[in-house]
């Protein structure tokens, strides 16, 4: 018999993590629940108003990648590992750009419309592969954006290699900042809400064990198509916003960056919580900007920091923070 030290974890008194009903007894407990939700929003707002135009652009970009990452995380929670967020992003971008260019509609019309049409378009072209599981779905999503890029290049439709320029921007710089910024928070809370409803439970069930869901008399393909629509629409919304902000849409919207970075963000921040995916985007995008100053080694340092993040905290940053917040840790002696 020997004694050794072991770490013991104890949940904090308030059952904040319980999904059952619980009573809030004091302002302190209310604060305990509200702080992690409200403080980041306040901090982000303060940040948005206190930085210069260049960093506001970075924040816009982080929000856009945040939406892509949340959308990726949502699809993963339903058993669809997408390697082609660029498909959804690009579809939204081109829909919005084209409608604005061809009909002269305001961005306030084209962006939401592009989110819906882009989402629907992606669902329609992905319906044949919804039946595929695991890596096959991923492969197809990886290839489709690259294919669309080549189609636009070869057929010279939608502006071909030149893209469509001279689109209408949002009326003011503040609206440009506010729309993506509000978008990412809405996406975050909507996704978390959705997955905790009974409907979301079925979606998680499909990821966990699709045959069991079929046995429950549920048509999983309809559920998957709906989830795909929700996820794709989010990303299409992000693409549409980017298009109007940059007043340009072209082939780069199908670039691999838009597929890979959201996955990296979710991996760094933690998969499955949506907040992790968003947090990851808000770390990686500014990090990439900060490193811009150091020139040639940028990509190497960026990649190294990615590796460090993932090796040091394989569960992700958000689950780590969440655990620290909801649990005490203490060292106890145990006999072995």
């Amino acid at each position, binding site marked *: 018999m020997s004694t050794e030290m072991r770490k013991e974890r104890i949940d904090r008194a308030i059952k904040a993590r319980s999904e059952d009903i619980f009573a809030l007894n004091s302002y302190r407990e209310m604060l305990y629940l509200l702080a992690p939700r409200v403080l980041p929003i306040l901090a982000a707002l303060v940040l948005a108003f206190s930085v210069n135009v260049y960093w506001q652009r970075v924040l816009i970009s982080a929000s856009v990648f945040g939406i892509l990452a949340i959308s990726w995380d949502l699809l993963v929670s339903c058993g669809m590992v997408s390697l082609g967020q660029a498909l959804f992003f690009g579809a939204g971008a081109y829909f919005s750009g084209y409608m604005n260019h061809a009909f002269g509609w305001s961005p306030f019309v084209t962006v939401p419309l592009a989110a819906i049409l882009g989402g629907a378009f992606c669902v329609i072209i992905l319906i044949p592969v919804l039946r595929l599981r695991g890596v096959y779905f991923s492969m197809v999503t990886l290839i489709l954006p690259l294919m669309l890029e080549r189609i636009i290049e070869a057929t010279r439709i939608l502006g071909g290699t030149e893209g469509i320029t001279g689109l209408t921007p949002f009326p003011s710089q503040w609206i440009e900042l506010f729309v993506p910024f509000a978008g990412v928070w809405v996406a975050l809370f909507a996704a978390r809400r959705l997955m905790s409803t009974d409907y979301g439970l*079925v979606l*998680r069930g499909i990821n*966990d064990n699709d045959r*069991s869901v079929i046995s429950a*008399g549920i*048509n999983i393909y309809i559920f998957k198509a709906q989830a795909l629509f929700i996820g794709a629409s989010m990303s299409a919304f992000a693409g549409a916003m980017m298009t109007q902000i940059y007043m340009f849409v072209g082939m780069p919207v199908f670039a691999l960056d838009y597929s890979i970075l959201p996955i990296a963000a979710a991996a760094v921040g933690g998969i499955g919580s949506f907040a992790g995916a968003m947090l990851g985007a808000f770390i990686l995008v500014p990090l990439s900007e900060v490193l811009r100053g150091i020139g040639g080694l940028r990509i190497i340092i960026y990649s190294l920091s990615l590796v460090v993040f993932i090796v040091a905290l394989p569960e992700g940053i958000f689950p780590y923070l969440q655990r620290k917040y909801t649990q005490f840790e203490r060292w106890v002696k145990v006999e072995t």
Partner: protein
Amino acid sequence: MTQAPLLSVAGLSKRFGGVTAVDSVEFELRENELLGVIGPNGSGKTTLVNLITGFVKPDSGSIVYRGMDITGMNPYKIAQKGIVRAFQMVRPFYQLPAFKNLIVPLFSPRVKKLAGGKYGDRGAVAKDILEEVGFERDSAVINKVARVLPHGYLKRLELGKCVAMRADLIILDELFSGLSLAEVASILPIIEKLRVDGKTIIMIEHRLRELFRIADRVIVLNFGQKIADGPPVEVMESEAVKKAYLGTETEG
């Protein structure tokens, strides 16, 4: 007076490559009957379940349920008609707490239809059903994620899913496998209660002693063929069955 059978299977065959897993199997099932299906390993029992529940499409033959041909129908549609199975290899939703596992079947269109278009409080119903299949109510177990639950509970959860679906025909694929005698003894009354509630049950089982106590009729499969069909006692006496299970002296 003879009632129309609840389920009638005729000439059902399924080949996988060169192996005929189910070979022109034929049987009928009356309402509220408990039919046991036994046979040596690899005799096609689970394939038969997969065929009836639509997960595998038959090469030939027909399956008629309540007068409706359901051969080759989509598995989710068959489940909606009330044929629900408990998987031999338990298939819980591992990330979800035990009672939330039942929310998925409770979300089924079938449940909605039977409840008259309304779902009601699924969480509360789920907990009631868990109690029915032997979870201790108000214990920590129902809130634990399925990943950490012991095997016995996962089997009960499979049974709970059939109850949640308000199945008319419940197919239990080796429900007792891997369970202790005490656990089996505690599940038997649950099955008997399901019969009192008017359910029809097919049990695929290797635990013959327990099965024969509750089964009305047993069919025996061997190499995909039905070699016996009748009350448990008769089936056990049949020469063909003894041969299939024990072999004959002349065999190598």
